[in-house]
């Protein structure tokens, strides 16, 4: 197995990604800019939505790069960037245990209740 295959822990990426705080000034050419996740609000009134990721040395540069990479066609009016290493994700192997308990609780949905048709505005 090639060594560049690493196990995934955080978000969609490995935990091996460096954060800006870890950057040394020694200028090693092996130093990769940290990875950032980009969230865009497409218009007022809507949530920021994850659109992808990019590399940048710091948050300001990440926002500037996100502008160029993800909003070339008026896709957004507001950008959030979060360093990928700060994203913690649930484990897909535990999906059953996490989401199963909701399955047998049909009474949480309004359609569960059988009421007369004459009943209106409810």
């Amino acid at each position, binding site marked *: *197995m*090639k060594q*560049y*295959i*690493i*196990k*995934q822990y955080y978000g*969609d*990426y*490995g935990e*091996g990604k460096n954060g*800006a*705080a870890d*950057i*040394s*000034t020694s*200028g090693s*050419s*092996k*130093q*990769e*800019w940290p*990875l950032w996740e980009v969230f865009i609000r497409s218009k007022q009134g809507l949530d920021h939505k994850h659109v*992808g*990721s*990019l*590399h*940048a*040395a*710091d948050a300001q*540069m990440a926002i500037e790069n996100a502008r*160029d*990479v993800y909003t*070339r*066609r008026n896709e957004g009016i507001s950008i959030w960037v979060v360093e990928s290493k700060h994203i913690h*994700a649930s*484990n*897909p*192997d535990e999906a059953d245990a996490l989401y199963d308990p909701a399955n047998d609780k049909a009474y949480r949905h309004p359609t569960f209740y059988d009421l007369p048709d004459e009943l209106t505005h409810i």
Partner: protein
Amino acid sequence: MEKNLEQLFQEKINKEIRIEPKDWMPEKYRQTLIRQISQHAHSEIVGMLPEGNWITRAPNLRRKAILLAKVQDEAGHGLYLYSAAETLGISRDEMYEQLHSGKAKYSSIFNYPTLSWADMGAIGWLVDGAAIMNQVPLCRTSYGPYARAMVRVCKEESFHQRQGFEILLTLSRGNEAQRRMAQDAINRWWWPSIMMFGPKDDESPNTIQSMKWKIKRFTNDELRQKFVDICAEQIKILNLTIPDPDLKWNEERGHYDFGAINWDEFWQVIAGNGPCNKQRLDARKKAWDDGKWVREAACAYAAKRAARKEVKVA
């Protein structure tokens, strides 16, 4: 009997459930995707070079602004795809190293030179047209991050093809020299473009497994035929010709027949012996090496600012 992970994985694929980065996947699936997505990303990045050549020589400001926007899109497409590949556990720098060392390939179309302005038209119409034909089915590819990247790419790509056709259309309605220039560009780009779909199905060893995993949705030959059928009609609007004497409508098949592809040339260019292989790679390596101080300076600046902030907090 207990199903093994590989069977469960294939069942998900068969049910059209997308695979996401943290899901279990066969190692071969991961590696096939890393190879395909990074190769695709490299193609976008190297693909800027033949066109970048013409930005300063565009015939007017309108064409120049359009070409700049197109080349910028290609940089963006490369970035979307590198990010998708990174979710599979390979680093950005590792991919660059593979490109620079020649270990990773990129689309061999970009190893052909751009000799005249009409080439910008032919590239948009034919090269981007062939790319779109390949990319549209990839919007439904089984790996989630790749599919999402392709949706964005495809949305942006259609202007690329249309601006290319418009360049050729304008030339085709021009004077005799302009018509000749357009025809010459089509003559040179036609065959390399239909080679872009890759080797024939019976010589494409990865196709069967990639179809089973729904990484690929159509075979190389299916897509190539579709592309030829469309171009054979579109060329009529240009009132120019496709440089293939064997191209003709086959009523029985419901498709255009076309002539034999020079596969020897295809393999030669892939092997590094195309007209511009060395020039393209040298340009990429130079850009990477010349950018080193910028990457380092940005890191140093970020570290300095972070340190200053810490002092303030303390």
